């Protein structure tokens, strides 16, 4: 989608406390909808999430990649709960650079910084 065609407004998406394989179909649907709606900015609130499995992480990863490709600005809203932080660090999906927490650090050598609010 061309940047100029995008609706100049944002969407926000609250992720639940547990994201598991069982609710992934709904997650994919939601994520696809926000991309297709042509928002220029999407805020994903990950601050309530305490558990996420690998299957769901793959989906978020793919979603973020797609947003990058479509020039959609994605903000991940934190702070992250300790439990999920540990999961993300162990699996390589999170990197701590000084004071900053970077989600998907392997994407474009940049990744997404978790905002504290």
């Amino acid at each position, binding site marked *: 989608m061309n940047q100029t065609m995008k609706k100049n407004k944002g969407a926000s998406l609250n992720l639940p406390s547990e994201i598991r394989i069982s609710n992934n179909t709904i997650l994919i649907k939601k994520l696809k909808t926000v991309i297709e709606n042509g928002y220029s900015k999407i805020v994903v609130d990950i601050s309530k999430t305490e558990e996420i499995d*690998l*299957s769901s992480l793959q989906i978020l990863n*793919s979603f973020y990649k797609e947003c990058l490709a479509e020039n959609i600005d994605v903000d991940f809203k934190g702070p992250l709960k300790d439990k999920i932080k540990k999961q993300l660090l162990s699996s390589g999906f999170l990197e701590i650079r000084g004071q900053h927490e970077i989600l998907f650090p392997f994407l474009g050598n940049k990744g997404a910084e978790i905002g504290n609010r």
Partner: protein
Amino acid sequence: MEIVDQIKQTFIDETEDLLSELEGMLLDLESNPENKSHLDAVFRLMHTIKGSSGMVGEDKIYKFAHKVEDVFDSVRKGEIPFNSELANIALEARDIILSILNNSDPDVDNRIKIVEEKISMPSQPAEKKKEEVSVKKSNYEKTYNIKFYPDQDIFKRGSNPLLIIQELEGFGTLTVDVDDAMLPALEEIKNDKCYLGWNIFLTTTKEYNEIKDVFLFVETDCEVSIEEVSHGKYSDDDEIAKIGEILIDRGVVTPDAVNKVLEGKKKIGEELVEKHIVSQDDVESALLEQEHLKKVHSKQSATQNIKISTEKLDDFVNLVGELVTLQAQLNQHTLNTNNYELTNIAESLQRLTEELRDSVLGIRMIPVGQTFGVFRRLVRDLSAELGKRINLVTYGEETELDKTVLDKIKEPLVHIIRNSIDHGIESPETRKKAGKNEAGTIKLSAQHSGGHVIITVEDDGKGINREKVREKAIASGQISADEVLTDQTLYNLVFQSGFSTAESVSKVSGRGVGMDVVKKEIDNLQGSVVLSSEQGKHTKVIISLPLTLAIIDGLLVKVDKDHYILPLSSVEACIDRNDAEEKKEGNKNIIHYRDLFLPYLSVRELLSYKSEQPLREQIVVVHTENTKYGLIVDEVIGDYQTVIKNLGKVFNNAKTFSGATILGDGTIALILNINNLTRVL
């Protein structure tokens, strides 16, 4: 403190640590005299003690340590053997140095003389060893590159790659890089398929096979490669390998090609890619390895220790405690105002305060292994004195406990272990007749359980004679002759003052003084102790202790206008009293909770509140080491960071409360003593 006094104090602190290490090493060496690394360590420790005592002018220690060091030099050279006689002398020498340090024995010169006479006597020369039998297990760190590509159906088989990576995390320093190249577009993703792979660098002392075992259940279906990428070169903390060196090491580029490229100014990785000598992927992977090695290196540099006096640490903890209290006040204040900016600042400050609190409490945590080490000597000396053969087996030495708790639990544990050695474990002859191994075993273990640490002392001795305990209790009037008691209640009598079933009083134990002190000490620590036994087989003492005595997570509840705190680690559930099924059994109030019938008590009644009972009350289900019960309160407010304040000597007998805390509005909340409340159930 004068600078000279400071130096002397540092010397004393350091030498005490060295002596403690020396004791452990000597015991290790005694059980495995062929182990050269233990022998070297003993020699090195004695050498360090000698050197530092010479530096601070402690001549008596210097001269004595020098003589002992010479003996161990002869052992190293194979001129004299290390046997139990030498172990005894060396342990006595270690005790003498400790006595000189603490100035605790006026007869120390005489003891030095005896030891010096013993070590000056010519010993039997050691037999020349045909070959070195000890195998030094490497604690040398190596770095491995692990490539882990699970097959797409791994989720379907119920395996979780994340758990495998987390297991590796426990082995050492890990750097994980996800490979998401196979990940399809969002609409093509199948929920149950795994599209990821991992490139992992692990620096560990573990061997290849131990790492391979982690993948035992997935290796047939997944692509797993484990390759050692560095030897001493990278794990020595001198220098981190450069990208070019890593690529040469991997054989993907020649040193010549690297040198040629180095003549240019660009980064070596970029240059090599531009010149099509290596691929971008190769460089990125090498960069990851370099990052990992930097991480390991900085970790090694950062893990140097500094000594801080416990007083300074306690002051620090107190200050953080005050900060936590102030934070609670700020939160309370911001709740009453609608200032968005202030709320933001208060929330950020709260996060920082919590991190600071966890860090400072972490500093106070010490592995119980340090205390367990002391008991090895106790078991060794006492069993030899009593002519018994006893092995001490320890588990969970790495379990950490607050320093204050650990210091206070040492004496009670000494009592329990002495009892096990004296009354529990039988003589080798008796054990043989009973069909047991001539050598008895005392198992000492520690493990985490919720907010508590459980320390267990178990011996495989003769156990407690139930009938004897009963007879003694009847004779002393503690129970009536027809009273029926459960095993647990009966064994609890052992913790009564003056209670002993020992027929004779020995130097070690049997006066009935000790177990009551043990119980009192553990109660004072807000812990609990339970005894179990099977006659002829074993006795087990299980002690449950809180992780810390400084700051705990509490549950704030309200009765009438007053607030109370319950330790959150003891809380199991909160239920509305109106939803609970209640009944009365004798004079006990019982509630039905998850298929269990639990006794309960009302805090309102316990503390004689006269005000009217509210329409809705809450039941908080709490648990102790051996029981569960309900506590009825007016209202459950929520979790609360509780800085524990002592009640002071005046309230020493107030068994209902274990302490107090200051709430955000400046009022005081008493902390209910969950263990002690069981007495009124």
